[in-house]
C-alpha cells in the first residue's frame, strides 16, 4: 500500500510537470508562427498602422513575451482560455461542448474495440496455427490497414440509408423526452463509433494475440496446465492477466491519440466534436479556439498515459519505480 501511494504521487507529479511543459510549448508555438493575431485579422481590412497598434495594445500583444506568458498562465489558472473569434463565446465553453460530444462517441467505439479485439486475439492465440487463427489475423490486419476516413465514407455509402449520415441529433425532433433524445444521439453515434471501433479493433486484436502467444509459452502456463486447470481458467487467470500489461498500455495510448485523431471521422460524419472544432478553427483562423483545443488534447493524452501507468501498477506487482 505504501509502495502504491508513493508511486501514485510520483506519477501524478510527472503528469503535472508534463502538462505544464505542454502549456508552455503551446503558448510559445502560437507566438513563433509568422504573423500575429492582428496582422492576420482579415476582419479589419484596410486598417491603418495606428489602428493595428491600438488593437495590439488592447490584446496586450505589444508587451514582452514574458509578461504575456505570465498573463496567459494567470488567466489559464482561472479557467479563462479567451474568446473564440468565430462565435464570440468563451473558448472553454465551446471546447467543453465539443469534448462532451466527442468523448461518448470515442468511448463507445473504444469499448467495443477492446472487447472484440481482446476476444479475437485470445481466440487466435489459443487456436494458434488453425484456420480460425489465420482468418482472424488476416481480417484484423485488413481492418488495421484501412484508413479511418475511407472506412467512414464506405460505411456512409453502404449504411447511409439505415443510419443517420451526419450530425448528432435529429434537428426535426421537436421537444424530445430525455429517453427519445438519448436514443436519437445513440442512433446518430452508431456509424462514427463503428469507424472508431474498427480502426482500433485491428491493432488491439493483433497485439492481444502476440502478447497471449508470448505468455502462453511461459513456464507458469505449463505449470498451470500440469495443475490440471481448465483452459478457460488458464487463459483468464494465468495468461490474460499477464498479457494485459502491454494491451492496457496500447489502449490508454491509443485512446489519447484517437481523441486527437477524430478530425477526419468527425468531418466525414459532421459530428460536432473536438475534431470538427479543430477543423473549423483552422479554416477560420480562430487562434484562441485552436490554442485551447491543443491544450485540451495534450491534457487528454497526458491523462490517458497517467491512467495507463496506474493500471500497470495495479496489474504488475513487480513495478517499483
Amino acid at each position, binding site marked *: 500500500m505504501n509502495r502504491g501511494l508513493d508511486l501514485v504521487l510520483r506519477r501524478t507529479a510527472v503528469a503535472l510537470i508534463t502538462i505544464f511543459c505542454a502549456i508552455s510549448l503551446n503558448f510559445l508555438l502560437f507566438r513563433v508562427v509568422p504573423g500575429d493575431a492582428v496582422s492576420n485579422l482579415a476582419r479589419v481590412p484596410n486598417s491603418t498602422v495606428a489602428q493595428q497598434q491600438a488593437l495590439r495594445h488592447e490584446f496586450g500583444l505589444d508587451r514582452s513575451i514574458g509578461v504575456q506568458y505570465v498573463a496567459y498562465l494567470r488567466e489559464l489558472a482561472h479557467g479563462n482560455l479567451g474568446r473564440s473569434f468565430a462565435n464570440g463565446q468563451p473558448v472553454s465553453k465551446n471546447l467543453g461542448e465539443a469534448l462532451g460530444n466527442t468523448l461518448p462517441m470515442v468511448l463507445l467505439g473504444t469499448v467495443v474495440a477492446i472487447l472484440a479485439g481482446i476476444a479475437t486475439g485470445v481466440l487466435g492465440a489459443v487456436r494458434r496455427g488453425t484456420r480460425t487463427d489465420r482468418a482472424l489475423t488476416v481480417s484484423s490486419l485488413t481492418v488495421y490497414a484501412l484508413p479511418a476516413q475511407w472506412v467512414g465514407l464506405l460505411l456512409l455509402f453502404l449504411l447511409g440509408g439505415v443510419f443517420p449520415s451526419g450530425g448528432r441529433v435529429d434537428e426535426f425532433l421537436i421537444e424530445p423526452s430525455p429517453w427519445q433524445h438519448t436514443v436519437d444521439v445513440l442512433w446518430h453515434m452508431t456509424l462514427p463509433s463503428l469507424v472508431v471501433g474498427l480502426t482500433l479493433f485491428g491493432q488491439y486484436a493483433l497485439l492481444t494475440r502476440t502478447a497471449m502467444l508470448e505468455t502462453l509459452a511461459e*513456464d507458469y502456463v*505449463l505449470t498451470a496446465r500440469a*495443475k*490440471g486447470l481448465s483452459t478457460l481458467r488458464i487463459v483468464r487467470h494465468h495468461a490474460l492477466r499477464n498479457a494485459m500489461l502491454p494491451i492496457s498500455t496500447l489502449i490508454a495510448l491509443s485512446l489519447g491519440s484517437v481523441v486527437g485523431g477524430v478530425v477526419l471521422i468527425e468531418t466525414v460524419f459532421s459530428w460536432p466534436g473536438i475534431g470538427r472544432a479543430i477543423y473549423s478553427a483552422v479554416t477560420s483562423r480562430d487562434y484562441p479556439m485552436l490554442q485551447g483545443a491543443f491544450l485540451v488534447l495534450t491534457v487528454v493524452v497526458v491523462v490517458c498515459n497517467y491512467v495507463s501507468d496506474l493500471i500497470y501498477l495495479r496489474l504488475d506487482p*513487480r513495478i517499483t519505480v
Partner: protein
Amino acid sequence: MNGPVLEVRDLNVWFDGPGGRDVHAVRGVSFDVRPGDRLALVGESGCGKTTTVLGVLGLLGATASVSGSVRVDGQEVLTGGDAAMAPYRWGDLSIVFQGALNALNPVRTVGSQIAEVLPRDGRVSRRAALRRAGELLERVGMAARNVAFYPHELSGGMRQRACIAMALAGEPRVLFADEPTTALDVVVQAQILELLDRLADELGLAIVLISHDLGLVGQLCDRAMVMYAGRAVEEGPTEGLYTAPRHPYTRLLYEATPVLGADRPLRSIGGSPPALDVPLAGCAFRGRCPDAEDRCSLAEPALTPVAPAHRAACHLTGRTP
C-alpha cells in the same frame, strides 16, 4: 507391495521438425513407479529426460506426437487425450519444474497459486484455502505469512520451496522433480534435497527425479534410469550403477561428475549426442564410445538384464566389468 501407480510402456515422442523431418526425441522408454519409489532419470541435456516426463503427463504441445502406453492405477491415460489425463493431474501426479522463477506466475501471490489447486470438497472459503496454503508452506519450511508474497519477493530457494508446497497441494502420490535444484547454490540445493527426502518419507510419496547430477541422484534415489539420445541405456539400483556401471555412457557420466575429495581425474565426454531427426543405425553412443567395435554400428543393442534388477543396452556389456 501394491501394484505400480504409474506404468509407462514403450513411450515414443516425435516433434515436427523443420522440413518435415520429424525429431524422434524419446524412443521406446518404459518404467514403473510404485508407491514410495525413488526413481531418477539421468543423462546430459537433450537426451529426452524432460520430454519423457512431459510426454507422460500429456503436457507436450501440439507439435509433438506421443505413442505408447501410460497407465495410472491400471487406467490408460495416453490414448484418451487431455480428458483422460485431467482427473489425475496434480491429484495423483504433480511436478516441480526447474527454474522456480518462471514456474510461478509473477503477477499472482504465492498463496493464490497454491490455493487454486487445493482439492475442493464442498465449498471451501477463500480464507480457508489460504490458511491451508499457509500450512503447506510451513510444511516445506517457510512462514505461513508468505502466502501474501509475490514470487519476485522470495529468494530462489524460497521459490523452489513454494513450488514444492504447491506440488503437494493436490496430495499427489507421484511427484516429478525436473532438475529441482538447478540455479540454486550448493547449500540451498542440499536443503531442497533434504526436504524432498523428508516429504517422501512422511507422505509416502513416490519421487521421480530428473537430473544430470549423479551426486544428487545418489543422495535421493534408490533406482535410476540412464537415458541417452531418447533411450534408456541402463537402469538399475543407484548403488549398482555407481560401483558397477555396465554401459560405457554411465561410466563416463560418473567420471564426469565432480566428487569432493575423490582421488581421480575429472573427465569430460567428447562430442555431443547424435541428431535425432535422422534414423539412427546401430548404437546411438558409438560415436563417443571409447570401446566401440564394428558390430556397434550394425544394430542397436537392446536393454538386457545384466544383474538382478539391473539392465543395460550395450553389445559389450558381457565384457565390461
